[in-house]
């Protein structure tokens, strides 16, 4: 008999498949009404734009407004980036993710010795108020939406820069648009606590996080602020359940800190938004987004007692999963990103940004960024998927999976609560252990072929058969020299007494516990640089990381 079984021709044999989602939820052969027993349309789904927002945060969704197709821009000097933004705005991009270089993301000036070889490499360098003014040279803070990939403490300085630019341009703060990224923990990709605390104390970072929220929610009603960067967390290798749970648990921990500061939940939560990843498991991702919206609405209404319906509505932007892409046969990454984009759209995203097909080989090029935009435009304008709200709503499978994801995410959130909330989980290393376990599991699943990865553990080709692609060229030393020269002149040309007084005011305000945003605005007007603002705040906390003169 055994011989007979092996004699089945290959084309007839069943391929080996695993019937579970990426996060390990079982998938049955068929879903029927039995799988959504007790389903109550009004309670579980409701009208789009109304509690519990399962079908979408807004009525009409993409019929009213297609999602924002964000274009990633930022390299070299502010002048180069500003020219690029002008070109892209003229050719149809309506929102920008501005990436910054690593020194800026840690609050170092371009001429800091620690910045050597890093200036302008991963994004634009921003060290002075003048740099930010340059970025707005061809646009205005009340017309074009920027999202700077940044985090506290640095986002306190860039927020102050934005406010100063608005002031100089005669735009009142209540008219400023855009998204202020403000996640203290996940922004720096990677899990370790070290990345947050190497250059700035953790308590100081959290204080500036809440300072930013207070400043935005009381003065800048049109500015979104991003509470959780779930994308970067997911990129470490966590699964969809951990992704959802850690993203929400983080937001709720920050909201708790805002309430402790005395901020009104009906005001500060109004413009809170999320940045989430979309991975490759199509239905699991869609179910994740729908489950998250429902959990958010319930928690905001019940636990935080928000009465303003705007504060029940979870809004998010999505980036397709960079860690689902392969270095091998990079062209097929375009298809992966398209599938992920489609899942994000079925999941009701407000803004989408796709990872570039060349990300396994280098930083994205203009060509690969354009393909991302075109992919979205095909989905938005050609496929017709935007023409009705939540087209998959009511599917036995999707509703069943949405319910199961909601339960699984809530359970995982309860685990975070048991460990003292998310900030505490970061502090104790619990989160890092969760991340590391997930990373090892991913590698084992790819090694063992449990998780198929085309081009890596199946359907490989030899390196000689790869089709060459354009690769991003880095001019790190050239940018570094130009910036160092610029900063030397900037420092020489300032009123040294006014500068010293402004530095002293940072020190005093920090120690008094004042909201730092207006204080930093004052410093920027007196030509204090990004790096100097941070140095003054570090000194006020008695914190130093420098050793041996660097």
């Amino acid at each position, binding site marked *: 008999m055994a011989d007979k079984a092996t004699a089945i021709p290959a084309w007839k044999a069943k391929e080996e498949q695993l019937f579970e989602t990426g996060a390990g939820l079982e998938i049955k052969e068929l879903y029927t009404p039995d799988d959504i027993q007790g389903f109550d349309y009004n309670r579980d789904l409701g009208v789009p734009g109304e509690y519990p927002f399962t079908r979408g945060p807004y009525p009409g969704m993409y019929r009213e407004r297609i999602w924002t197709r964000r274009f990633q821009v930022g390299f070299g000097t502010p002048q180069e980036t500003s020219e690029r933004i002008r070109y892209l705005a003229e050719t149809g991009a309506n929102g920008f993710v501005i990436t910054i270089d690593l020194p800026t993301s840690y609050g170092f000036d371009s001429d800091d010795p620690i910045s050597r070889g890093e200036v302008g490499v991963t994004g634009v360098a921003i060290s002075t108020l003048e740099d930010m003014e340059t970025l707005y040279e061809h646009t205005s803070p009340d017309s074009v939406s920027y999202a700077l990939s940044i985090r506290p403490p640095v986002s306190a300085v860039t927020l102050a820069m934005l406010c100063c630019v608005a002031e100089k341009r005669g735009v009142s703060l209540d008219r400023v648009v855009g998204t202020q990224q403000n996640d203290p923990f996940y922004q720096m*990709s990677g899990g370790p606590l070290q990345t947050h605390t190497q250059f700035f104390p953790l308590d100081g970072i959290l204080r500036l996080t809440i300072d930013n929220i207070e400043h935005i929610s009381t003065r800048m009603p049109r500015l979104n602020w991003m509470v959780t960067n779930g994308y970067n967390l997911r990129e470490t290798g966590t699964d969809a359940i951990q992704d959802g749970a850690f993203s929400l648990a983080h937001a709720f921990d920050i909201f708790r800190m805002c309430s402790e500061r005395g901020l009104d939940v009906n005001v500060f939560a109004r413009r809170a938004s999320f940045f989430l990843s979309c991975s490759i498991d199509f239905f699991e991702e869609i179910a994740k987004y729908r489950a998250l919206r429902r959990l958010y609405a319930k928690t905001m209404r019940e636990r935080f007692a928000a009465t303003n319906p705007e504060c029940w509505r979870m809004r998010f932007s999505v980036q397709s999963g960079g860690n689902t892409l392969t270095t*091998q046969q990079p062209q097929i990454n375009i298809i992966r990103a398209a599938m992920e984009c489609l899942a994000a759209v079925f999941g009701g995203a407000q803004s989408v940004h796709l990872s570039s097909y060349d990300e396994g080989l280098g930083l994205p090029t203009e060509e690969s960024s354009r393909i991302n935009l075109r992919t979205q435009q095909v989905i938005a304008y050609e496929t017709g998927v935007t023409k009705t709200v939540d087209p998959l709503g009511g599917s036995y499978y999707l509703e069943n999976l949405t319910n199961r994801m909601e339960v699984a995410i809530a359970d995982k959130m309860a685990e975070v609560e048991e460990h003292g909330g998310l900030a505490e989980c970061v502090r104790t290393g619990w989160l890092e252990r969760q991340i590391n376990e997930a990373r090892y599991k991913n590698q084992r699943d790819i090694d063992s072929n449990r998780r198929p990865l085309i081009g890596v553990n199946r359907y490989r080709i030899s390196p000689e058969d790869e089709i060459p692609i354009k690769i991003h060229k880095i001019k*790190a030393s050239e940018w570094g020299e130009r910036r160092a020269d610029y900063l030397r002149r900037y420092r020489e040309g300032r009123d040294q007494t006014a500068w010293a007084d402004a530095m002293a005011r940072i020190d005093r305000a920090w120690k008094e516990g004042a909201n730092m945003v207006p204080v930093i605005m004052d410093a920027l007007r007196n030509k204090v640089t990004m790096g100097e603002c941070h140095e003054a705040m570090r000194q006020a906390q008695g914190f130093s990381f420098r050793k041996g003169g660097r």
Partner: protein
Amino acid sequence: MTSRKRVLLAKMGLDCHDTGIATVAQMMRENGYEVIYMGLHNYADEVVNTAIAEDVDLIGVSFLSGQHETQTRELLDAMKQAELNVPVMCGGIIPPDDAQALKQMGVADVIEPGTLTPDLMTRVSAILS
């Protein structure tokens, strides 16, 4: 007597993408290596000093954000100055042309994303033999 080979892994510069290197560290431990992982933001002289103090057989550094050339050169220079002669392995997002340049600089191998663990182990043994 067989002694386990000792490997020093480190991230250099400001890049904090550590998924690759943290995974490699664990896979190497599971395959019989003794791994010392220094974490993020190490300077070249710190890596070299640790390599000497720990008497390692191999140094591995990983980059995602475009610093591979600057940082690897600094590491190799610091090694030369300290007269430390152990093989260096790079990993991460490194364009093929740059990988070639790194090898010309003296790097023993450049591991690309998507390398399966058994292949990694074969390449590491090749460097060490």
